[in-house]
């Protein structure tokens, strides 16, 4: 055997030629033994970073909320049942009245009633599917974060395949999906596999999302600056925020319907509350200075910048909670990165 590594050896601690820690030692000790106090590394669950924990907490508040049976739920179910019965009764009496007037009118009413039922059932089914899909995405996000933190290859393989499956219906991701499929076979480490998938599938979408946020922020700041009435720009901001968040959710593969959208809003609200309206990368100073300088030039302009900032913040929160994987390859963008014009304007003018 080729002997390159050091030979095994041992030293008795009571040997007078050996120095142990800080104890009395000979002038030229044969060997020095330093006790190591650091504990044996135990493979704990690797900790998730703060940003990721915040995002997951926000998702749990809305998108991935587990519905518990609560008293309120029972009450709502009862109320909803009664309302549906009332509506049914009304429709029934309406149809009867129409039949009493003319046979043909009654038939038409029945046809409409059937359409109503079919449509309502379809809508309801779509809502369910949409909510379930959003929850799946949020759970996928948490699982990917976990698998990446634990460097769990087996878990990562399955999850990455699910991530790719989210974008099956998008032809422009064909190349990225193929890349991920190849990485599933070739890459050994779970951590790397998650990173590869994120880079291939999500970074292009991230760019689109950032562009959407930028457009919305710019539009809001401009409209606020020129709008004649406060109430008008309030409505406009609200409409823009709704449009933006829906668009972001769709880009990442979710399909928020009505209830799904409410859940999304709850998650965004929770994320804003947890992060205190601050994303990593931008500072309160920037926000205040941006507002301050602009507002000294003109009050309307200042409000415009502020509204633009708020829109961008909401957009970034939506981005964080809708994204099916945590930000690992790239840092999560800050307001200054998605909407630099808000700051530039205040500096140049």
């Amino acid at each position, binding site marked *: *055997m080729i*002997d390159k*590594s*050091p*030979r*095994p*050896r*041992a*030293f*008795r*601690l*009571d040997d007078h030629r*050996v120095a142990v820690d800080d104890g009395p030692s000979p002038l030229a000790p*044969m*060997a*020095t*033994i*330093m*006790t*190591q106090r*650091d504990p*044996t*590394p*135990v*493979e*704990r669950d690797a900790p998730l970073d703060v940003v990721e924990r915040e995002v997951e907490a926000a998702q749990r508040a809305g998108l991935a909320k587990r519905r*518990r*049976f609560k008293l309120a739920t029972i009450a709502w179910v009862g109320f909803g049942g009664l309302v549906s019965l009332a509506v049914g009764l009304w429709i029934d009496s309406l149809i009867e009245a129409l039949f009493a007037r003319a046979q043909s009118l009654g038939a038409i009413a029945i046809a409409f009633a059937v359409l109503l039922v079919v449509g309502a059932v379809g809508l309801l089914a779509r809502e369910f599917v949409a909510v379930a899909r959003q929850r799946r995405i949020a759970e996928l996000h948490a699982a990917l974060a976990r698998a990446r933190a634990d460097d769990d290859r087996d878990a990562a393989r399955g999850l990455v395949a699910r991530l790719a499956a989210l974008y099956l219906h998008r032809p422009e991701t064909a190349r990225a999906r193929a890349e991920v499929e190849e990485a599933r076979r070739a890459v050994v480490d779970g951590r790397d596999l998650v990173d590869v998938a994120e880079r291939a599938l999500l970074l292009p979408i991230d760019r689109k999302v950032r562009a959407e946020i930028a457009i919305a922020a710019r539009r809001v700041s401009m409209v606020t600056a020129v709008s004649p009435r406060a109430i008008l720009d309030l409505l406009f901001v609200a409409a823009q925020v709704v449009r933006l968040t829906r668009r972001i959710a769709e880009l990442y593969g979710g399909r928020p319907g009505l209830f799904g959208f409410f859940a999304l809003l709850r998650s965004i609200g929770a994320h804003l509350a947890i992060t205190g309206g601050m994303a990593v990368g931008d500072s309160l100073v920037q926000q205040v200075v941006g507002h301050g300088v602009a507002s000294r030039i003109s009050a309307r302009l200042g409000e415009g910048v502020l509204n633009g900032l708020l829109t961008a913040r909401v957009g970034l929160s939506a981005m964080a909670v809708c994204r099916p994987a945590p930000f690992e390859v790239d840092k999560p963008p800050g307001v200054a990165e998605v909407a630099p014009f808000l700051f530039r304007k205040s500096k140049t003018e």
Partner: protein
Amino acid sequence: MSLFTNLAFEAGVVARSLADYFNGGALRLGVTGLSRAGKTVFITALVDNLVNGGKLPVLRAAAEGRIARVHLEPQPDDAVPRFPYEEHVAAIAGPERRWPVSTRRVSQLRVTIEFERVGAWGGARAQSLNLDIVDYPGEWLLDLALLDKSYGEWSRETIAAARAKSRAPVACEWNGFVAGLDPAARAEEATAVKAAELFAAYLRQARDATYALSTLPPGRFLSPGDLEGSPALTFAPLPLDGAEIAAGSLAAMMERRYEAYKTHVARPFFRDHFARLDRQIVLVDLLSALNSGPAALSDLETALDAVMHAFRAGRASRLGAIFRPRIDRILFAATKADHLHHADHDRLEAALKLMTGRAIARAEGFGAAIDVVALAAVRATREAEIRHGGESLPAIVGTPEAGERIDGQVFDGAAEAAVFPGRLPDDPAAALAGEALALPEADNDWRFVRFRPPITRAGAPPPHIRLDRALQFLIGDRLA
């Protein structure tokens, strides 16, 4: 196995599983390991840490403070002796500080864990989990590999193994004797006794620490228990060379006894203790095999593979759990991880992964969850750094056992010493290459000495390495 014995065996397993289920459905933890792998110490440390509130930060239920109380209960099988847990704790933590003596019989213990989980309505819900653990002589485990082998197959394999180059020094006397035997000769008890004695002597010597071989069935030859001298233990393999076994010949007698051994010794042992496991931990003592050399390692690999072949692994379902429990989680553990510095633990795990590769692949195919870990149920050393001759070496400090030697030093079992055991190779395959057995110390890049148990505070469980991680993997989901 014939169809009928097979059916009867299955029926027995099902009947016992049903009885188990109606007795409150305990979780049966199979502590598997060849002799001297550390089964007894593992069970003792596990129970000690649970009952006396040891530090188990990775076991989630313990870390979250949800475990209310853990206590020992009378075990379900009245016919099996109780695991002498208190004795073993006294041996390890008492003034003698010695490891428990090698196990000679089966014993059993039931641990009840009372814990709380968050209920569906948000409140706390008290629950309890019964954990049944069985301890047994590790040598017996090898018998499981015999269950599917006929006398002819076993003879051929055993004789071929004894004639292999690596085993030649241990087996020469036995080889010489068996060469002079005629399987077709008339059956004589004296010949049979002589053959069995020599065969047993060969097995015992091969197991010795210098050789550290593992594939040595039948297990009762090494640890006979109460069967010593009975006909079921008076047989040996014969060089049949594919010849028919004539009635009344020596070979016929041996074959009958071999079958009797399987029916009366091996099969009941398997049925009573292994056919109905829920979770399994396979303890492997890689270090003594590493000390001995590549042949001992590949022999250990063969033994592990043969043993794991006998177990049933696969995802458990509710109905299946009643009729036919399956092992759904298997943990492979390289024990005595405290005998090397933690920087080498990853390499130890890699070596174990390589050695158990076949068993892992098979279990994964059945849908069981697998994990590999380097652990020490009782941590006998602490870590240090030796600076010597311009080198800085990661070392461990403990009290080596009397008679252990390394680098020309012989220890007296009283003095503490800092030991640098050498470095394991980055590529575990390097340690497996070759045929050598019982290598002298100078030929190996490493030398692992055994340590005495640590000095512990009275009443407190001794420290451990990753015992909590093993527990989290094995029973954590049932405490969630």
